[in-house]
């Protein structure tokens, strides 16, 4: 079996602030294969963005990788210097951000922003870079690329800008693309088109994508595998099918039951009560315990390990321990599984 393109081994990232250490990412392990789309889902503040930016080392100086290894394409990049990272950024690892209205430089023409990304990593003539940039614009579905090439971003709509950002991110054939809430700021129809575009690009180029989102609906359309994060930890990870149809972690149950599509007409929408914890001095034990109606005594004392459910599916909850009482997922979720 081929080696994964991206591997995180027990990665922890903390921020040193004046009021103490904020543990944004805690002990995350995951791997991503070539051509695979892994969705990372979680509430805001759960560490999704910090996790992805720590791989590209885009985080501010106050952050540090506390422990763990980042392995890209078989190479351990955890201790890479800024200079070494620059060579990887764009050419091996690339990123698309949430708000296309602000992620493009407002005064530089689109074409130049793409060619910059190309000439950074390959020795090409101006004309070659231009040709490649036009190809990229074509690939991401911008019509009349020749004409658009010289225009500044303010001539473009949000959806078109996100396409341009994608063109920039993909211009040097990266192996892994981090799409950090890449569709969140777009309206629903544009969202669907960008997702189709991402899938299309994956099929054509075999790129691996880490798709960060808080929207289960969007994720369902795109993901091969899904990782659910809570309070800086992955609480459940598995193939999309496993996580959607056989979730094991009470937090994922909560999230799933909150989906409006699972609510019958006339019923109130369900929600998970309480608030996610502040990651300054995170609670002992399972961070979700206080909001968990199925919490066990041990949840308050010891962090649950990852329990393997199938070779691809694991979840971190004490409910999966053999000594735990057997609790099945809530009725509303079973309702869907039956359909």
């Amino acid at each position: 079996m081929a080696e994964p393109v991206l591997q995180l081994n027990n990665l922890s990232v903390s921020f040193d602030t004046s009021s103490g250490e904020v543990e944004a990412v805690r002990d995350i392990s995951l791997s991503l294969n070539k051509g695979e789309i892994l969705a990372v889902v979680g509430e805001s503040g759960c560490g999704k963005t910090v996790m992805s930016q720590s791989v590209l080392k885009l985080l501010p100086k106050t952050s540090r990788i506390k422990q763990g290894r980042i392995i890209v394409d078989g190479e351990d990049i955890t201790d890479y210097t800024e200079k070494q990272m620059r060579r990887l950024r764009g050419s091996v690892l690339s990123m698309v951000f949430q708000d296309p209205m602000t992620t493009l430089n407002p005064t530089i023409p689109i074409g130049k922003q793409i060619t910059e990304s190309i000439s950074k990593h390959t020795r090409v003539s101006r004309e070659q870079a231009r040709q490649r940039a036009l190809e990229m614009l074509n690939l991401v579905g911008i019509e009349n690329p020749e004409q658009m090439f010289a225009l500044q971003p303010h001539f473009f709509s949000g959806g078109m800008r996100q396409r341009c950002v994608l063109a920039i991110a993909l211009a040097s054939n990266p192996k892994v693309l981090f799409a950090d809430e890449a569709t969140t700021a777009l309206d629903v129809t544009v969202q669907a088109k960008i997702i189709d575009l991402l899938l299309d690009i994956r099929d054509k180029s075999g790129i691996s994508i880490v798709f960060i989102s808080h929207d289960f609906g969007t994720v369902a359309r795109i993901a091969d595998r899904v990782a659910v994060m809570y309070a800086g930890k992955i609480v459940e990870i598995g193939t999309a099918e496993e996580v959607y149809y056989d979730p094991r972690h009470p937090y994922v149950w909560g999230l799933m039951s909150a989906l409006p599509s699972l609510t019958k007409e006339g019923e109130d929408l369900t929600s998970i009560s309480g608030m996610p914890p502040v990651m300054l001095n995170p609670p002992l034990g399972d961070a979700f315990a206080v909001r968990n109606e199925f919490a066990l005594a041990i949840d308050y004392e010891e962090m649950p390990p990852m329990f393997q459910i199938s070779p691809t599916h694991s979840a971190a909850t004490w409910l999966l321990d053999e000594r735990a009482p057997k609790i099945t997922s809530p009725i509303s979720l079973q309702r869907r599984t039956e359909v």
Partner: protein
Amino acid sequence: MNRKATISKKLIKRILGFILTIFILSVGVFYIARLAPGDPLQSYYGDAVESMTTAELDAARVRLGLDGPIYLQYSKWISNVLQGDFGLSLKYKTPALEVVSPLIGNTLLLGGTAYILVFVLATLLALFCARNEDTLVDRIICKVGTAAYYIPPFWLGVVLVLIFSINLQWLPSSGAYDIGKSGDILNRIQHMILPLVVMILSHLWYYAYMIRNKLLDEIRKDYVLLAKSKGCNKDEIVFKHCFRNVAPTIVSIMAISIPHVLSGTYIAESVFNYPGIGALAVVSAKYHDYNLLMLVVLITGILVVSTSMIAQSINEVIDPRMKLKEVPTCRIIESSSS
């Protein structure tokens, strides 16, 4: 064709605005100068005014156009000005234009050099500080810069004269050139060094700090993350990406700062006895030399307003989004695919 029409329309609008601004300025200064206490005849006749009779004084007032209500004086003055007659300088007893014209060059030379140096140095310093944000060098420059900015320029001028002219005798203490050497560039530069040092030190950090903070604002923006994630290094981000977005702001700051730097020039001129219109402005206000004062004010006003208009035009070229009230003509319709 359409484009040409809008441009000429805009130009006419600007010129009208320009004339209106200068008109309001002249009215304001004219009134304030005349309402200020003091007697212009004192500067015209000197001590002889003490021994003049009331009738003689009245006759002199009529002759010099100092009689009647102020609005009549103003209308007389402005009709003369429109014919190119700026009146007599009461202090120097020659046409005001003749007093001013040899000095304009001196002021423009000193002020212009200072202005360019201040902004070139401020931009370089700001880029350097932003590039090395929060390092020891940046922090030292910030502290030293702030301290330097708060040194009063007149005091600094006197200290510099004491050190470099009197003790070391390296540089001249006053004037724009030695007698008979008005064409000698080296001699002029020698005379300009001390005034320039004072002006640069008293303006540099103010603008460098402003530009530095603008740059830091830019560095925090989202597009920097994208630039970083495509492999740009810090230099490229600061110099190529961020500087480009700060450039219009720098041009705006430069335009707004013209009065500030000009007033700095006036102070430096007074301290170093540099013959320029700044020193003249102080003198003319002191002696109630109305005609001279009005001329100096007009020159200063035209300089300030026209440069700020030019700056606006440059801004539009750098950043097309800044066009004032332009109809959105070429917003491309969302392509059918997105």
